C-alpha cells in the first residue's frame, strides 16, 4: 500500500498574526517531499486563499492537507456565516466583506475565482449560518 501524509491545523479566527502560517507549513512539507514547483505553486495560491478566507471572513476553522502518490487534497472547514449565493461568489469582484476588512486589503472579491484558477478541482459546500467546506485538489 502506498503511503499518505496528513497535516492538520487549527485556524484561529481573526488572528492575522497567524494568517498564512498553515499554508506556509504545508508548502514547506511539499518542498520536502520534492514535489514539482508548479504543483507547489498551484497548491500554495489556492490553499492560502482558503486559509485567509476562513480566518478573516468566518471566524476561523480547520485546515487539513492530505498528500498521496496522486494528489494533494486540502480541506478547509469553518463554522462561519456561509455563502448565500455560491455562483455569485465565484464571480470576480463580488464580495460581501465589510468596509473594515476591505481596509485591511482583503475582501476584493478575487479569493474564490483565484482559488478556482489554481486548483485542479474545487468543491465548495456551504450553508448560510452553518459554515463552509472547501475542498481543493491538485494532481501531482
Amino acid at each position, binding site marked *: 500500500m502506498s*503511503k499518505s*501524509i496528513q497535516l492538520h491545523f487549527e485556524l484561529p479566527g481573526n488572528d492575522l498574526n497567524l494568517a498564512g502560517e498553515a499554508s506556509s507549513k504545508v508548502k*514547506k512539507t511539499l518542498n520536502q*517531499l*520534492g514535489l514539482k514547483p508548479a504543483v*507547489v*505553486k498551484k497548491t*500554495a*495560491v489556492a490553499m*492560502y486563499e482558503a486559509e485567509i478566507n476562513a480566518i478573516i471572513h468566518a471566524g476561523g476553522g480547520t485546515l487539513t492537507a492530505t498528500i498521496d502518490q496522486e494528489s494533494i487534497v486540502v480541506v478547509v472547514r469553518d463554522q462561519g456565516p456561509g455563502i448565500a449565493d455560491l455562483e455569485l461568489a465565484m464571480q470576480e469582484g463580488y464580495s460581501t466583506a465589510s468596509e473594515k476588512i476591505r481596509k485591511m486589503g482583503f475582501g476584493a472579491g478575487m479569493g474564490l475565482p483565484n482559488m478556482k484558477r489554481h486548483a485542479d478541482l474545487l468543491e465548495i459546500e456551504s450553508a448560510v449560518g452553518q459554515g463552509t467546506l472547501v475542498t481543493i485538489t491538485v494532481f501531482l
Partner: protein
Amino acid sequence: MLEVKKYFHSVTLDEEKCRGCTNCIKKCPTEAIRVRKSKARIIEERCIDCGECLRVCPYHAKKAITDDFAKLSEYRYKIALPAPSFYGQFKTTYSRSDILAALLKIGFDEVYEVARGAEIVTEATKKLLQLEKLKKPVISSACPAVVRLIQVRFPSLIDNLLKLESPMEVAAAISRKKAAETYKLNASEIGVFFISPCAAKVTSVKAPYEKEKSNVDGVLSMQDVYLKVVAVIEKNMGSEALEQAGYAGIRWAGSGGEGLALGTEQFLAVDGIQNVLTILEEIENGQLEEVEFVEALACYGGCLGGPLTVQNAFVAKTRLKKHIDKAKNKAVAVTVPRHDELMWTLDIEHRPVMKLDDDLDKAMKKLEELEEINEKLPGLDCGACGAPSCRALAEDIVRGIANETDCVFLLREKVRALAMEMMELEAKMPPVLDKGQTNGKGENGTRRG
C-alpha cells in the same frame, strides 16, 4: 571541473577562528550551516552566499574569498569597475571624479563605472517590460544572493526572474571591447576587475548561473580597494570627464534605486534577507500580482549594506545622496543595445536541496519519522546539537547525518534512565550473598529468579 563550478562559494570558514558557537547557524536563511566537532560546516549546495554569517560571526571566522590585488599584474591593461556603492564609502569632501582618479593612481589604466552599466540595464528592462509578456511580478536579478535563494527555496518563482545581464557584466563587456579596439589588445591582455560590496558577486563571477563564463577577470573586496584609495586620494585630483554615469545608475547602490529608475509606479523594493523571504512567500501565494516589478536585495540598505563595505549602510546612504544630487544636474545619454542582446544565455535550474528523498514514498516515510522525532525534541531551538532548530535536527536525523543523542536534553533523559536502571541493578544481590534473604523471601523487593 564541473564539480568545482557547481559548488564554488565565496563564503568560507576560517577554521582557526571558529569557536563552534551557534550564532551563524541561527541566521542562515537556508539552514546551510551545522556545527560539527566545534567548527561550523557549510552545506555547500544550500549556501547562497548572502553573507549573513559573515556579518553575525563574533569571531570573524567567516570570510569571503576575493581576488588578491596582486592579480592586476597578470594583465597588461587593467580596468576597474567600481560598484555604485563604492562612492558611499568616502567622505563627501571627495567628488566622484576624485574617487575615480584615485583608482587610476593605484594601478588601474581605466575606470568604467558599474553605475553606467546599471543605466543600460535599466533601459533594457524598460524595453523588455514593454515588449514582452513576462510573468508578474517580475523579480529583479540584480542581487545574486536573492536569485540563488529563489533557486533553492522558491523554485516556482524562477520564471518570474528578470533574465537580463547584471550591470557588472554589461560594464565589463563594454569596457573590455572598447579597450581592445582602442589599444589593439588581445582579450587575454585585458584584466577587468570588479570592486565588490559582497561575497555573492564573487560567486557570480567564479560560477555564473546565467552564462558559461563571466566577462570579469577578478573580484576585489571593496575594503581592500578602499584602503589603497584612501592612501592616495586628494581633493580635486580628478577631472569631471571621468564621471560617465548619471544619478539613476548611482542610485542602484541603495534599496529602491533600480525600481525608481524604471519609472513605474507599481514597483516594490525590499531589502534584508528576512524581509525578502516574507515578500517571496507572498509572491508564491499569489498575493502580489498587482505589482509589476520587485526589487529584492539580500542586504539591509541594499548594496550599501554589503558585508564587504567599509561604512555602515546609513552613513553610506547619506554620503551617496550627495553624489546623486550632484549628478542630477548632469544629463547622461545612454545608448542601449537591443534588450535581447542582454538576455541570459543559460537558465537557472531548481536546486531541490530541501527534498528528503527522490522517491515520493520514501520521502513520505522520512517525513513521518521527522515529525515523530520532532515531537520528542524539547522545542527550545537551543542549537547545542549543531543544527539551527529542533526541527532541523529531526530533519538531519532522518537524512542520516545526526543522531537523537545529539540533543543534550534527550541525552540527559537517556543518561537518567540509565542511571535509574543502574541504581535498581545495584540494589540486587546474588542470592548466595544476600544477607537479608531467608527461606526464599526477599527484602527490598529482591527475589530469587
